[in-house]
């Protein structure tokens, strides 16, 4: 008949989870060991990839600076993400509500989605001023905009016809159909897009920094560390950017789990 209900003992559950993660943790360990000892043994020069522990030491030496830089760049990414995703969502609502408009614009939106938007980074610096965070926020926002728009629009419009007929038989108006059917139906699509967007926002902010910005920003620090042959510091900054990007993604993945409890994709969890 039905599933769920029965919950195994908490400890056993914990043990099982640990067991599931063990292979991944082992891979991480091997990776770090190879990075630390295997690469130097193979004669990889430090300007190509310094040993792991040297990078950790470099991070320790300029920790405050790197964390502050990471925070600045992360704020740029977050601002761009919030701006780009919310505009895309609202725009998708408009296009889904007035379909002829949507179908007229869709080919261009898909084309725009394929444009390498980071190519515009030097231009936005010219628009907003090289030291302004807005030049990076806009790049991140534009990067987030198209995947969120295209996915949300697909989610809002891929509703089975009977669902709409049913709402029609209840004499429901358009606002109600959007609130109760189209928007909930779009959520799995929206969250997939938000996960992509979180990655793109970090890329946009860091690459935006590469074309100039406040000397305190992470991307600028990477560029200047490399130009000063401080490869360990550059790698430490890259690690900071990676950790921030992964954390950003993870927060959205957790929010998705929470918001889509009703979705069949969560079924593995409680069994």
């Amino acid at each position, binding site marked *: 008949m039905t599933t769920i209900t029965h919950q195994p003992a908490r400890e056993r559950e914990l043990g099982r989870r640990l067991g599931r993660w063990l292979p991944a943790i082992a891979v991480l360990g091997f990776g770090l060991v190879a990075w630390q000892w295997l690469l130097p043994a193979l004669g990889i020069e430090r300007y190509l990839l310094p040993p792991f522990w040297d990078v950790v030491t470099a991070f320790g030496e300029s920790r405050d600076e790197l964390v502050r830089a990471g925070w600045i760049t992360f704020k740029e990414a977050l601002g761009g993400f919030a701006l780009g995703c919310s505009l895309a969502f609202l725009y998708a609502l408009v296009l889904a509500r007035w379909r002829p408009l949507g179908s007229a614009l869709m080919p261009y939106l898909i084309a725009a989605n394929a444009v390498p938007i980071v190519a515009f980074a030097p231009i936005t610096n010219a628009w907003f001023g090289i030291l302004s965070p807005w030049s990076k926020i806009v790049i991140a926002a534009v990067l987030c905009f198209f995947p969120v728009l295209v996915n949300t629009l697909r989610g809002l419009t891929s509703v089975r016809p009977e669902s709409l007929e049913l709402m029609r*038989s209840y004499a429901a108006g358009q606002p109600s159909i959007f609130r109760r059917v189209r928007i909930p139906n779009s959520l799995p699509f929206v969250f997939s897009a938000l996960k992509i967007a979180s990655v793109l926002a970090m890329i946009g902010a860091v690459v935006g920094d590469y074309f100039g910005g406040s000397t305190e920003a992470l991307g600028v620090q990477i560029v200047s560390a490399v130009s000063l042959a401080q490869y360990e510091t550059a790698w430490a900054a890259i690690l900071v950017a990676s950790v921030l990007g992964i954390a950003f993604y993870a927060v959205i993945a957790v929010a998705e789990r929470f918001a889509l409890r009703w979705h069949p994709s969560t*079924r593995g969890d409680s069994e």
Partner: protein
Amino acid sequence: MSDFVVSAERVTKTFGKGGVTALQEIDLEVGRGEFISLIGPSGCGKSTLLRVIGDLVPPTTGEILVNGKPAHRARLDRDYGIVFQAAVLYDWRTVAKNISLPLELGGWDRSRRADRVREMVALVELQGFEKHYPWQLSGGMQQRVSIARALSFSPALLLMDEPFGALDEMTRERLNLELLRIWAETGSTVIFVTHSISEAVFLSTRVVVMSARPGRITAIVPIDLEQPRAAETREEPRFFELVTEVREALHAGGADEIVAELEALE
């Protein structure tokens, strides 16, 4: 106000410009408390007729009155509930929330909604599953939720489009009995589209036989089996006589090749 819950007069529906005639001059009157089955081969327009009555598609010509009002008015007044072949539950709503959706839209307050949902869950015997999501239910249970949802706001008319078509024979026979019990308890009027001759005879007060190309009504067979019907009804000689009568009406409608197909389905 007319005594008929549904009265269709010379209803014709064509799709596309000068295209297929899905319905041709349909006249049908359905009295209060009746259980009407529409049966016929694929393409005879029985689902279209149901959708025209429900104001989901407009008729090309002709007039449909539901509760004495134009079908459009009746839809806005929420005069009917609909059940499709697929349960069409909203995946993000629990069983209880699915059943209460029409009530929310009808502006019922929270406590009245909760009371009614409890009644409806009991009616379709799904106690204990209120907080389950649709994917956690079997096909038969999903369809019961869908029926509870359609009945939750006590519509005068229940429109059902092959509601048990996707279920296995055992579940279908059980839900047939359950539907008859609910019909007797609620006193609603039902229009029921089906592919199955025996299901139509078992459930209905009248069976409307349709033929295809163009879709029209070729016969109406009154079913005089005693009420309330039970599993044993299917073994009565009269039941078999009526099944034969409906089958012959389908033959007479020029649907020989399709009757064979219908029988294979049963």
